[in-house]
C-alpha cells in the first residue's frame, strides 16, 4: 500500500532577479521520515524550505501538503502554515514575550484557545524541550541553545504535521549545539516528519532516513546516510562531504547527538 507523501514538490523554480536559486527541484517526503538537506551555502536549501510553507512564493512548480496543493490559487496560507512548523537559524523568538508567551501566543491568537488551555499546552511543550523551569524568562535572558529550544516548542505548539529546520544550530556556540540536536533527535524518535537543512554531519548520519545533497539549485544526489557517506555516486557529493567533515571535525560528529 503506498501512502500519500506528507510533502510533495514538483519541478520547483525560484529566481531572485537574474539569479536562479532553484532550478527544478522535485521531492517527496513520507510520513515520519527525517530528511536532511546538505550542500554548499547559496545553493537554495533554505529557499526550498521556505517555499514549502510559502514564506517564499515559488515562480514555477507545484507543492502538495498531504492531499492539498498549496501552490494552487486561493489557498489559505495561514491555515497551511499551521500544519507546518518552522525553526529558523536565528531563532526569531518574540522579544516582548516570555518563553511561555512565545509558545502560547499562537495557541490563543491563531488557534483561538482560551488562556488556561494555552497555558497548560504551552507548559507541556516547554517540558518537551526541557525548559519548563525557564517559562517566565524573556528571550534576552536565555542562552542561544535555550532560545532555539523555545523556538522548537513554539512550533510544536501548533501540532504541525511536518517540521522544517533551517540551519537550526548554525548561529549557536559549539557547546550549545548538542542540546538542540538532542531535542531534534527526540522529536525524530517520536515520529515527527522533519526536513532539516544543516551542516551537522553527525546528526545527518545518525538520525536521518535520507540525505539530500543540493548544489546550484538542483538535487545532485540523495539516498540513505550510509550510501551518501560511504558510497556516493557523484564526485561532488564525496568532495563536499569530505570537506565538511574536515571542517567540522570528527569529534563533533561523534559527540553531537547523544546516541539514540
Amino acid at each position, binding site marked *: 500500500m503506498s501512502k500519500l507523501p506528507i510533502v510533495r514538490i514538483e519541478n520547483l523554480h525560484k529566481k531572485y532577479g537574474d539569479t536562479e536559486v532553484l532550478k527544478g527541484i522535485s521531492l517527496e517526503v513520507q510520513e515520519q521520515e527525517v530528511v536532511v538537506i546538505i550542500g554548499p551555502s547559496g545553493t537554495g536549501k533554505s529557499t526550498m524550505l521556505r517555499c514549502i*510553507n510559502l*514564506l517564499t512564493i515559488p515562480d514555477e512548480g507545484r507543492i502538495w501538503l498531504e492531499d492539498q496543493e498549496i501552490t494552487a490559487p486561493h489557498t489559505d496560507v*495561514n*491555515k497551511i*502554515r*499551521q500544519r*507546518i512548523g*518552522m525553526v*529558523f537559524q*536565528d531563532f*526569531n*523568538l*518574540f*522579544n*516582548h514575550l516570555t518563553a511561555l508567551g512565545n509558545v502560547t*501566543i*499562537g495557541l490563543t*491568537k*491563531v488557534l483561538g484557545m482560551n488562556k488556561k488551555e494555552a497555558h497548560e499546552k504551552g507548559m507541556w511543550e516547554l517540558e518537551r524541550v526541557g525548559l519548563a523551569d525557564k517559562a517566565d524568562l*524573556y*528571550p*534576552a*535572558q536565555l542562552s542561544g541553545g535555550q532560545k532555539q529550544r523555545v*523556538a522548537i516548542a*513554539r*512550533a510544536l*505548539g*501548533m501540532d504541525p504535521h511536518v517540521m522544517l529546520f533551517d540551519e537550526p544550530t548554525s548561529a549557536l556556540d559549539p557547546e550549545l549545539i548538542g542540546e538542540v540536536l538532542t531535542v531534534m533527535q527526540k522529536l525524530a524518535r517520536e515520529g515527527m516528519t522533519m526536513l532539516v537543512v544543516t551542516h551537522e554531519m553527525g546528526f545527518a548520519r545518525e538520525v536521518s532516513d535520507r540525505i539530500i545533497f543540493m548544489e546550484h539549485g538542483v538535487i545532485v544526489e540523495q539516498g540513505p546516510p550510509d550510501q551518501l557517506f560511504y558510497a556516493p555516486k557523484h564526485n561532488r557529493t564525496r568532495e563536499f562531504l569530505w570537506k565538511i567533515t574536515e571542517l567540522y571535525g570528527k569529534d563533533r560528529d561523534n559527540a553531537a547527538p547523544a546516541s539514540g
Partner: protein
Amino acid sequence: MDFLQQFGFLVYYLSQGLGVTLGVTAIALTTGLFFGTILGLMRVYGGPVLSRFAALYSLVIRGIPVIVVLFILFFVIAAFVNLSPFLAGALSLGIASSAYQSEIIRGAIMSVPPGQMMAARAIGMSRLKAILYVILPQAFRLAIPPWSNEAAIVLKDSSLVYVLGVPEILRRAQYVSARTHEPFIAYAAAALLYFALTFLTNRVLDAAERRFRLLM
C-alpha cells in the same frame, strides 16, 4: 515677603489653568498617537499609494509652523462642526503632532527585526495579527524614548492654543500681566509651571521606559 506672597498667589491663579493645559496636551497626544500609528503603519505596510500619502502628509505638516496649522485647522474645523475652542485647539495640535508621531512609529516599526514578522507568519498569523500582536507591542516599547521627547514638545506647544482664547496657563499669565503691568513676574510664574510639568512628564516617561524596556 510681600513679593513672595504675591508670587505665590500668582502661581496659584495660573495653576487653575493647569487642568486646561493638561487636558489639551492629553487630547493632542492621544489624537496624535492614534493617527500617528495609523500613518506610521501606512508608511511601512501600506503599499505604494498609502505609504506615499502618509509620507506626503508628514512632509507637509512638518513643514508648517504648528501655530499656522493650528489657525488653519481651527477655522476649517469651525466651518464644519461647532466645537469649543478648547476641543478644536486640542484636536488641531493632535493632528500637527500626528505627523511627528508617525515618523516616530515608523522608525520604531522598522527597528523591529524582520525575522519577527517572518516567525509570526510561520505560525499561521495573518499579516494583521502579526502586526497587532508581535510588531506593534515591540514598536511601541522602542518608541518610548523619542515619544517622551514629543510629549514634552506637545506639552509646551499646548501654550499655543492661547491664541484661540483657551484659558490655559499662558492665557492666564497674559491676563495677569495686563492687569498688574508686571509682565516679567507673570510670565516667570508661567515658565515655572511649564518647567515643572515638563520635568514631571519626562520623569514619568523615563520610568515607563525602564519598566517596558525591550531587551533584544
